[in-house]
């Protein structure tokens, strides 16, 4: 009986301790999520949500169908995939190469380069967006520079729908590489130098010690970085919003921006915007599952 009482008291204490966190979780995570899904299948058209004069009806998956048929949704999704690609196959390899070069003392003034490479990461994405918008503007320094080499050169980089996303991808490469650089540098420093020395004594070349010692030791970090890159790519917003606003003709839009445009620009369509956000969550899960599968296949060789 005494033991039962103690267990009951213990359970009550646990409940008491986790209650604030649970309540907070419901308020800021669970409720908005459920609310968002509910909104995505409704016909809410503005005005007061609770207790308003216009009734809100369930309309099934109409908003998802409308999103699916919208060409700008596919343009945004395609751009998001480009960003995922530039992140996974651009930022991560570049971050690793730079970290490796510094770690293996291939360059002098390590501290200086470390600072320069990481510096963009500490600047607000909106500031970075405005800065590069000015640089790539038809009347900006990039145009002036190009005209110095080729007089009369017309800067159509951002106004050509085929190339408009390229400057955005380049800026993303420049902006986020520093994050992966720091992650790799920290993990490279964790590798026992004696292991590399031993490989060298055994006659391994620089490439062989990289291929057979260092890269396997970092495989887990590479997978973690990939997950970070994928999830980060899907929520890209601030930089593109400030740099191009998703234009020209929405050709540089991404899913987050498409959702924003649907919700706030022009005719506010909250139900469809919530359908986009629900799709983004599902899509993120899908990509993370793929990464996890890749981790199972290639990761876990640190030991």
């Amino acid at each position, binding site marked *: 009986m005494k033991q039962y009482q103690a267990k009951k008291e213990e359970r009550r204490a646990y409940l008491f301790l986790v209650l604030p966190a649970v309540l907070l979780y419901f308020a800021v995570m669970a409720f908005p999520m459920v609310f968002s899904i509910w909104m995505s299948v409704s016909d809410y058209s*503005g*005005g*007061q*949500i*609770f*207790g*308003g*004069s*216009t009734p809100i009806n369930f309309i099934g998956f109409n908003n998802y169908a409308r999103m699916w048929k919208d060409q*700008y949704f596919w343009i945004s999704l395609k751009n998001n995939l480009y960003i995922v690609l530039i992140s996974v196959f651009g930022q991560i390899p570049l971050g690793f190469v730079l970290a490796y070069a510094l770690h293996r003392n291939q360059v002098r003034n390590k501290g200086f380069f470390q600072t320069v490479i990481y510096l963009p990461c500490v600047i607000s994405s909106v500031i970075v967006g405005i800065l590069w*918008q*000015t640089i*790539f*503007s*038809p*009347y900006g320094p990039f145009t002036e520079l190009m005209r110095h080499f080729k007089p009369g050169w*017309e*800067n*159509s980089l*951002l*106004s*050509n*729908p085929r190339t408009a996303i390229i400057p955005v991808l380049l800026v993303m490469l420049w902006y986020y590489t520093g994050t992966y650089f720091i992650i790799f540098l920290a993990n490279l420093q964790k590798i026992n130098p004696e292991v590399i020395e031993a490989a060298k004594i055994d006659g391994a070349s620089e490439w062989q010690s990289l291929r057979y010692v260092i890269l396997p030791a970092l495989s887990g970090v590479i997978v973690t970085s990939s997950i970070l890159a994928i999830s980060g790519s899907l929520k890209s917003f601030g930089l593109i919003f400030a740099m*191009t*606003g998703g*234009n*020209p*003709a*929405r*050709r540089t839009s991404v899913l987050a921006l498409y959702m924003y445009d649907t919700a*706030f620009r*022009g*005719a*506010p369509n*909250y139900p469809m915007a919530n359908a986009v956000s629900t799709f983004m969550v599902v899509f993120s899960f899908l990509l993370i599952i793929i990464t996890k599968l890749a981790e199972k296949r290639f990761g876990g060789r640190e030991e």
Partner: protein
Amino acid sequence: MTFRKSKMLMVLLVVLVISLLPMGTLAAKKVTLRVLNYFDASSPGASRELTEVWEAFEKNNPDIKIVREDLFGEPFHHKTESYAAAGRLPDVIYMWPGGRSTTLHTKKLVKDLTPFLGEKRNEFSEAALRPQAGGYLGELPIGLTATHVMFVNTELLEELNLKMPKTYQDLKDMVAPLKAAGKDVVLVGAQDDWVMQSVLFSMISGRIAGDAKVDQFIAGKVKFTDKEFVDALKFYQQLFTDGVLNRNVMQTPYGEVAALFAAGKAPFMIDGDWKAGAFLTDPTTGQALISPEKQKKIVITVFPAISGEVVSGTTSSVPGVGFGMSAKLKAGSAEEKAAWRLIEWLTSEEVQKLRMETGAAFPSRKGVTSDQLEPLAQERGLFYGRVNGTYVLDDQIATDICIPINIGLQEIGLGLATPEQVAKRVQAAYDTWAKK
């Protein structure tokens, strides 16, 4: 209790009651008004607006306390929609006659101001009091707006031996000499997709199709795929093929274009009349993008005559932005009276005069003048006297239909869509909207 003690107690009670009286029944009850204001703190006239409009009102109305939120650009619109969704709209709110404030009008979240205005409506220009997106006067305009004006740098034209164009052909003939001089022809800050529709295409459709036709489009009596609308889109496309507009306008940020024009990158700039304010002197710094002396060389006019136009020399105009009153304010309440007193002040002659001087808005009231206008502000005033206006599309047409127009205009400019394709998409959007 002795008599002395009870007497003292009585005195204390009386003192207590008297000391409480001013805070309660004796003092006039102070009304608190929540206001959501659209305010560009970086504009040249910002400091004057704060002191001479808002602080002055509170000083002259000690019984009203203003709790004001100043926001600008997208954050303003988000906040408005959020307040509407939560059912917590501020008592007085800055609004557009349609466009981004459509929800407030169509959901009747603001009161009809016509009964409040009464006989005083005669003091306003009739154009300013046209029914708005909800079919009633949801906001009292603080000004009138011409969404299309062509700013002309006559000094630059003279330098290049060019004359003011009277027809589109004249403008087209300038393309080659301007290109040779390393200049663009017309600047438009059209990176955002609303810009082309608002500052250029509304004027083109007004001239080529005419307002009567636009009324028929809205009523569904004619289709957007009909000749008139397609012709308007074709003329717009021609601007790019003729080189009058450079594709670069699509990557020119809206906020950057005034500085480019002031720097002489092109002799023409197309924008709304409000852009004049960007060139005036900032009283806090004494600096101006175009000095008052040089402003004399800037002319504000409209796009030259277009071949086949049904009306000539017009701009596109709209009753300006203004202030509305929350529908939740109880009729006859002290809050409602205070809100109306504030709206009256914000649309008063005094405030409109100030806004005319700072270049923020052209008066919606009749006969407002000032002797402190810089040359460009004077030019703006004269402009209103010499041009007529046609509809601004996003003021007349539902936003669901305007979105494909806005994006379609960018696509035509970039060569991604033909006028026929865009017209078809607009008609499809209309059909969907009409079914609702």
